[in-house]
């Protein structure tokens, strides 16, 4: 089964969310009009990224992160330019130029920076190759996609797109049930944590915005990020008139009435007859 398309129809945020929730392993190649990116994932985490035809050497990554001087970088490239990143990393640690933490942080940041560049792409053919791993000689640093998605979404500026994705503010939210999901290791801003404290199927998004004095745009941006990161899901609001907001010490928010369910307009015996007939098709 192919996972391919164009970013015009299925954005990068949605793609990352899919990879994250499905815990996919493989490589996502994106060909934008002027650039190309390759992103590697392992069990739903980003482990490697490259931009364009250049695949930056570890020495260059460490130089950009301020861990090596220009002189050191020049020397290393001249003498060990063809050495694999993994081997070079061990050598640099042994001679005391950098620590293991320096390498992991620098490579991780480099990967994230590429990812955030790709976030701004709105056009480009993508294709996901399952089980394709990053190049053997590169250092893979796992990065949680929830944080990438949240940060990428924070950078997302188009109000029009947010309105398109979340047109109805009279829906409510609840936390998803995914195993292993918790809010401790997720980096949320102050405004996002304020929204989190109101999340309850009885509170509509509009009510949460009012309680926090947020504009439609602000609440859409925050909720969209959480939806894409798989932290929350949309539900019909529960409850009727006198339901207070969950957070103690705050003013009450008047809920909107929940939509009532209607029974199907048919007797059981009719449905059983239909089933019998359809089975004979």
């Amino acid at each position: 089964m192919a996972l391919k398309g164009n970013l015009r129809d299925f954005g990068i945020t949605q793609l990352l969310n899919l990879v994250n929730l499905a815990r996919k392993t493989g490589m996502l190649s994106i060909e934008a009009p002027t650039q190309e990116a390759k992103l590697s994932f392992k069990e739903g985490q980003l482990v490697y990224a490259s931009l364009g035809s250049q695949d930056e050497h570890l020495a260059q990554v460490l130089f950009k992160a301020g861990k090596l001087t220009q002189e050191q970088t020049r020397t290393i490239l001249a003498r060990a330019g063809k050495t694999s990143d993994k081997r070079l990393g061990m050598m640099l640690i042994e001679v005391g130029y950098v620590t293991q933490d320096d390498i992991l942080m620098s490579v991780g940041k480099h990967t994230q920076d590429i990812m955030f560049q790709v976030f701004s792409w709105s056009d480009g053919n993508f294709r996901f190759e399952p089980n394709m791993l990053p190049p053997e000689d590169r250092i893979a640093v796992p990065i949680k996609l929830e944080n990438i998605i949240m940060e990428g979404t924070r950078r997302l500026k188009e109000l029009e797109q947010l309105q398109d994705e979340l047109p109805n503010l009279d829906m409510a939210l609840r936390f998803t049930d995914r195993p292993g999901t918790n809010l401790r290791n997720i980096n949320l801003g102050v405004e996002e944590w304020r929204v989190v404290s109101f999340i309850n199927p009885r509170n509509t998004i509009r009510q949460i915005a009012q309680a926090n004095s947020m504009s439609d745009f602000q609440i859409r941006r925050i909720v969209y990020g959480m939806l894409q990161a798989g932290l929350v899901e949309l539900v019909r609001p529960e409850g009727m008139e006198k339901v207070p907001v969950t957070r103690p010490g705050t003013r009450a928010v008047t809920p909107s009435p929940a939509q009532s369910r209607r029974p199907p307009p048919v007797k059981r015996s009719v449905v059983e007859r239909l089933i019998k007939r359809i089975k004979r098709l």
Partner: protein
Amino acid sequence: MGTVQTVKIVITGPFSAGKTEFIQTVSEIDVVSTERKISSESERIKERTTVAMDFGRITVDDDLVLYLFGTPGQKRFDFMWEILSEGMLGFVVLIDSVRPETFREARMILDTFRAYAPTPYVVAANKQDMDDAWAVDDLRIALRIDPQIKLLPCVATDRESVRNILLELLYSILEELDAQEV
């Protein structure tokens, strides 16, 4: 002669998702459709496009008939959806698994029908026989479909596949009836 009871299931989904084929595969009459002059570039995907509803019929017995109504795919026929949703037993949302550019519209249609009538529904990922089809599991995530909602593989030209979709919807209707009786 007694009155014949008619019941209705609506088949909906984006333009060119396969609604006409779905109904045609199981209907005992030819699906009602009307040729019209193609006026927009996007509609050239199909050889002809429908302006009337897709309409199919399955006779159950002497006093019960099931009608299958297909909603027009074009946005300008949105007003038909509210009319079609009145009194329906349930509905099927067809997804074109090969065209991710239609996923957003599919999601919008799903939300619209749920708002019109909170009756049982299933989602059918059509064209699963094609190489470029997105996997069902990926579609569930991509369209943010609740885990409790049935999302089923479908090939609208295959009778067994269509039968399976309709059966699953009917089972969901039974479950809803049982839940109401409790």
